[in-house]
């Protein structure tokens, strides 16, 4: 079921070449400094923890803001971890907006590597208006994917998909695929009827998979 759904999605979800190239041209090789702007900043050398109010962390085209953050160290060189709390808002490549109640971001090799957003996590692709939500959303900067799990759903212009164990949104290809099947939960695929006939040669969306 999951593999057939995956194939169906790959077939149905078209992507123009220009969209893909534009997305892939984003900041994958960027080595800009990590910049922190914030309110009060406390460095506790005994615990090697940093507590920051109203942080804004910027690297390349990624910006993270929140009410508060705790970091495991000032050193982004080794694998450091930043825990954000309250109104977490992330902009990726000037294109994706992620929000959540809390988030944990890890930096590796001086770069943002991965973010795990928890609690009413959402994403919006401002280019396509694709959007999704889940109780847990994992952003992988290297793979450029969003892994949505626990009550995951993704909305695209042509359809909504929800359920299953998790959904994977490919940020380069603007494509969603089903993830793990270990939980045994079924996916629900709801095609939106086109408001007018397709004019660009794109195939109409498939029938719901029950």
């Amino acid at each position, binding site marked *: 079921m999951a593999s057939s759904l995956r194939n169906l999605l790959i077939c149905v979800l078209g992507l123009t070449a220009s969209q893909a190239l534009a997305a892939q041209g984003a900041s994958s090789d960027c*080595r*800009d*400094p*990590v*910049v*922190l*702007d*914030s*309110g*009060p*900043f*406390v*460095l*506790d*050398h*005994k615990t*090697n923890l940093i507590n*920051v109010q109203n942080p804004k962390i910027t690297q390349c085209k990624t910006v993270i803001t929140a009410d508060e953050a705790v970091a495991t160290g*000032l*050193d*982004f*060189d080794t694998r450091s971890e930043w825990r954000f709390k309250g109104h977490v808002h992330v902009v990726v490549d000037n294109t994706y907006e992620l929000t959540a109640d809390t988030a944990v971001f890890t930096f590796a090799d*001086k*770069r943002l590597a991965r973010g795990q957003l928890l609690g009413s996590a959402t994403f919006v692709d401002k280019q396509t208006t694709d959007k999704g939500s889940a109780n847990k959303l994992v952003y992988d900067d290297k793979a450029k994917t969003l892994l949505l799990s626990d009550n995951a759903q993704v909305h695209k212009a042509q359809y909504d998909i929800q359920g299953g164990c998790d959904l994977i949104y490919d940020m380069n290809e603007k494509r969603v695929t089903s993830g793990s099947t270990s939980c045994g939960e079924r996916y629900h695929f709801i095609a939106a009827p086109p408001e007018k006939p397709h004019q660009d040669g794109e195939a109409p969306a498939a029938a719901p998979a029950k």
Partner: protein
Amino acid sequence: MITAGSGTATRDHAEIELTDGVQIQSQPTDGRPPVHVTTPKLKFLPMTSLAETDEHVVMSAGNWHVEANGLRTLLKADRMELESDVHGQFAP
């Protein structure tokens, strides 16, 4: 360690006002990079090891460079607070 170009102390030495290129340098023994702070003016209370200023502060630690307004630190507690307008940069 705190150094400064000039300073004045109260008669009972409870409070020392340091000016003219004040520098604070931590001296870690566990291999961590030292924290280095510069500010134009600093009040230091030897009894409590409290050092504070409302002035502009520049802090560097490892590859980090952080600027802010206002500093409050308990040197014995190894704790440093930058009070507002914090702007930091880590250069890869």
